[in-house]
């Protein structure tokens, strides 16, 4: 047993987190910043943070992840990091020539009280920011929230620091992407185009974290939302935030700064959430849902009706990030499955509220988020009530192997497989992919464990 010390007896813990179902804010801020074209994320803290975040993102995407650090030493930690950040800005613009530096803080710089707004203002005043270049920032202390919070904060920072209201409304809708894959963002653009909806999607990591092999390293790949686009978000007629935790703060910021009205919908994962997204986008952009989208939907429903027997009643444990878990859990229910155990390390009452609503259809399901909602707890729950399927990031493989559970990788980080960054999970086509994956592992299990006389040709 790989996790031989995990026993079934669940005890309340107050101090110790074991096998977390989250990580810290800055990595989320770094990921979000990569979704701006020509942007270099900058970690204002000890250089270990930056190294860890770059490594994790690289392992997930198998792609270059460029980011700089303030390289704090003990001196900086005592006397404040302003000098480091100013020096960094200088060096970065000289050497890496980005259009934008997106600075996020760390537990270190937050603990010593560095004020990013003040320091970047000083950089501007000192002429360290070249004409036409930008330094934006987000406060992302690691001791609050999670990687998802950090993502949300940086995205909100993009909105509040770039958006300008010119007084002239534009016929476009802001789409705030919750934490999702480049493939998902690409798919959202495709769907919007198919619907004839003019959108500004931000952030947008497609063509950044799925860059082609060309024999050249393009430091700033062609993807990412551009500065003019970000500026224009203040003139958009509406904002659609995809995910109440990772996307809504940016929508609120836009509303506050530029009075752009907004609606928050779940990330469009699975049938029902995609339905709501399509309806909301249709309404916001004033476009009819074209038949081609209805047909995409119909293809997903087709598989759901035709394959219902294989999903029906299968018990599922899942863990990951709230904006993904919410619609995914709903999708599992739409498929006739039984979500039994759900944890997310990311705190927030919204998760609890939405999950309670959704899980009315699944009486007795365990779910918990925030402090001590970790994979150790999930594993203990599984030991008490075994499941037929586990869904989560790569760390789930240890539980899956110990408990011999079919496992579908979903979420962040996925370190041991490819595909997530190339094939979307959002939209109806993403739903098909999820269904294919789930069916695949369930049927593989059947093929593996069937007695010879029960080995099936057709399924």
């Amino acid at each position, binding site marked *: 047993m*790989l996790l031989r010390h995990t026993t079934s007896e669940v005890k309340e813990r*107050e101090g110790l987190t074991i096998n977390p179902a989250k990580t810290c804010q800055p990595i989320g801020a770094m990921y979000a910043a990569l979704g701006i074209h020509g942007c270099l994320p900058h970690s204002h803290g*000890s250089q270990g943070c930056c190294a860890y975040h770059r490594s994790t993102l690289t392992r997930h995407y198998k792609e*270059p992840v460029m980011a*700089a650090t303030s390289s704090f030493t003990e001196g900086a930690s005592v006397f404040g990091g302003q000098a480091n950040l100013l020096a960094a800005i200088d060096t970065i613009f000289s050497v890496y020539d980005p259009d934008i530096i997106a600075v996020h803080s760390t*537990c270190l710089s937050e603990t010593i009280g560095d004020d990013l707004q003040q320091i970047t203002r000083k950089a501007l005043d000192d002429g360290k920011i070249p004409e036409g270049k930008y330094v934006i920032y987000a406060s992302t202390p690691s001791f609050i929230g999670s990687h998802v919070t950090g993502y949300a904060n940086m995205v909100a920072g993009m909105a509040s620091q770039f958006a300008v209201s010119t007084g002239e409304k534009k016929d476009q809708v802001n789409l705030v992407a919750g934490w999702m894959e480049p493939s998902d963002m690409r798919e959202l653009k495709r769907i919007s185009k198919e619907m004839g909806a003019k959108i500004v999607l931000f952030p947008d990591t497609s063509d950044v974290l799925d860059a082609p092999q060309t024999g050249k390293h393009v430091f700033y790949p062609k993807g990412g939302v551009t500065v003019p686009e970000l500026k224009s978000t203040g003139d958009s007629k509406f904002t659609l935030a995809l995910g109440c935790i990772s996307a809504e703060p940016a929508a609120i910021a836009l509303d506050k700064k530029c009075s752009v009205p907004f609606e928050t919908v779940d990330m469009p994962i699975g049938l029902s959430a995609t339905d709501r997204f399509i309806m909301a986008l249709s309404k916001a952009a004033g476009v009819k849902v074209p038949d081609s989208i209805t047909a995409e939907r119909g293809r997903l429903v087709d598989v759901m009706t035709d394959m219902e027997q294989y999903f029906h009643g299968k018990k599922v444990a899942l863990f990951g990030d709230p904006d993904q878990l919410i619609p995914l859990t709903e999708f599992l229910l739409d498929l006739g499955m039984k979500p039994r155990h759900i944890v997310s390390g990311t705190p927030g009452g919204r998760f609890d509220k939405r999950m309670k609503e959704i899980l009315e259809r699944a009486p007795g399901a365990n779910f918990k988020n925030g402090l001590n909602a970790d994979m150790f707890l999930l594993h203990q729950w599984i030991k008490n009530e075994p499941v037929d399927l586990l869904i989560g990031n790569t760390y789930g493989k240890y539980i899956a192997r110990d408990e011999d559970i079919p496992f579908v990788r979903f979420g962040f980080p996925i370190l041991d497989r490819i595909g997530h960054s190339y094939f979307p999970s959002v939209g109806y086509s993403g739903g098909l992919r999820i269904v294919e994956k789930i069916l695949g592992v369930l049927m593989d299990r059947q093929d593996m464990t069937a007695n010879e006389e029960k080995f099936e040709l057709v399924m």
Partner: protein
Amino acid sequence: MEANKTYPDPSAIREELVQKYPAKVAKKRTKSIIINDPETVPEVQANVRTVPGIITQRGCSYAGCKGVVLGPTRDIVNITHGPIGCSFYSWLTRRNQTKPETDADANFITYCFSTDMQEENIVFGGEKKLKVAIQEAYDLFHPKSIAIFSTCPVGLIGDDVHAAAREMKEKLGDCNVFGFSCEGYRGVSQSAGHHIANNGVFKHMVGRNNEKKEGKFRLNLLGEYNIGGDAFEIERIFKKCGITLVSSFSGNSTVGQLENAHMADLNVIMCHRSINYMGEMMETKYGIPWMKINFVGAESSAKSLRRIAQYFGDEGLKAKVEEVIAEELPKVKAVIDEIRPRTEGKTAMLFVGGSRAHHYQDLFTELGMTTVAAGYEFAHRDDYEGREVLPGIKIDADSKNIEELKVEADPELYKPRKSEAELEALKAEGLEINGYEGMMKQMMKKSLVVDDISHYESEKLIEIYKPDIFCAGIKEKYVVQKMGVPLKQLHSYDYGGPYTGFEGAVNFYRDIDRMVNNPVWKLIKAPWETAAGENDGVLEATYAEA
């Protein structure tokens, strides 16, 4: 050794590498970019702060302490005291393999423990939560040891992890609890963390068990972390030779081994940078000499075995070692003979670690490949130039912040394993006891040595040298590969390995052969691009033909 290709003038290259930097940065970086001369060994600026804003390979003190040194020991509960990130990122990412003897043995390697500090803990202090966490860990797992690792905020808010550890150790009674002040901002790289880790392990673990275990030739293996199973291969070879491994620091190790390590008669050091402190301190306190060895490379492995035999001075051991080498080397040779025609004359760059950039040159040499440039992420001058420069190294502010233990001979346990005379005799025979001659003496003249290389510099070097392979870590991997050059990870081995000893050498040869000769690199250009000549294609064409 000289490269068998002609390269641009290294001085010109050095200038090109720094020309885009602001003046002050350029000046600083120039001191870390050295044109090698193995005879004179020029001074390398090393173990200094990275310039803020520079994209560096380096990590932090916590990574060196928890991630590197303490991580591989399977039966310690390692609690990271801090916000969740640090524990998360160091969770299973270093591939420290470990193999409990039975299914009942403790193994916490697959677990991640954290106090997950929240804002209130930052404001009001986190010691209380830490102590609760220790108690909970104890109640759940009853481990022999619990170690606490401090992350950045811990030191700043004044949490005294050592006091908390002492208190809990006393309270729990049968559990050794100790802490590390390895906050990420300490020092200039992982290196500080290694030092802190060594101090802690020496203080809190080594020496707790004076039992003398069986074995005639008893040694500790220091600075070998069993990535990809490296330690398993070395263990195999030791066993075959009749050498007893008392404790490994710390690949595939247990608390019990570490606590008993001072009963060995020799310390052999693999990764000089991460653990030479331990060798020094154990010599001082217990009288155990240390010796730099290297089990990366077949020839190096053979040499290391011979040195160990020479140290022990036992003819039986010497004969056994020769027998083992005679059995193992031909199998390696056969593979080399097959592969070398395909690798001969190719070039490599290594920018990684504290000793790996040195060790792996041996393997490339065995493949007939030339290392045209190399450097470390977090080494000190002695790792480049040899320990003889140690007295001349100035201790700067960043290093001063790392505790230097005052070690004295143990009144009861100090027992020189070799007399002064014996040691002198061995040295006279050419055995380098307590010494390390560094990387540069082994590298060819006019090769480039770059400390703490930046992303910018490495891209430039690749453009200029067009190496056949580049060795670094995960952060660099896909950047370099986007340039059409395969990158071999020498932290994780690209999830391959082991690469130590004889079987490991064969693994490495095969992997490098695969990488430098894989036709997949020829597929990069789309046919319409080549046809239309839309691209300058100079660099790419070179790769395509390589």
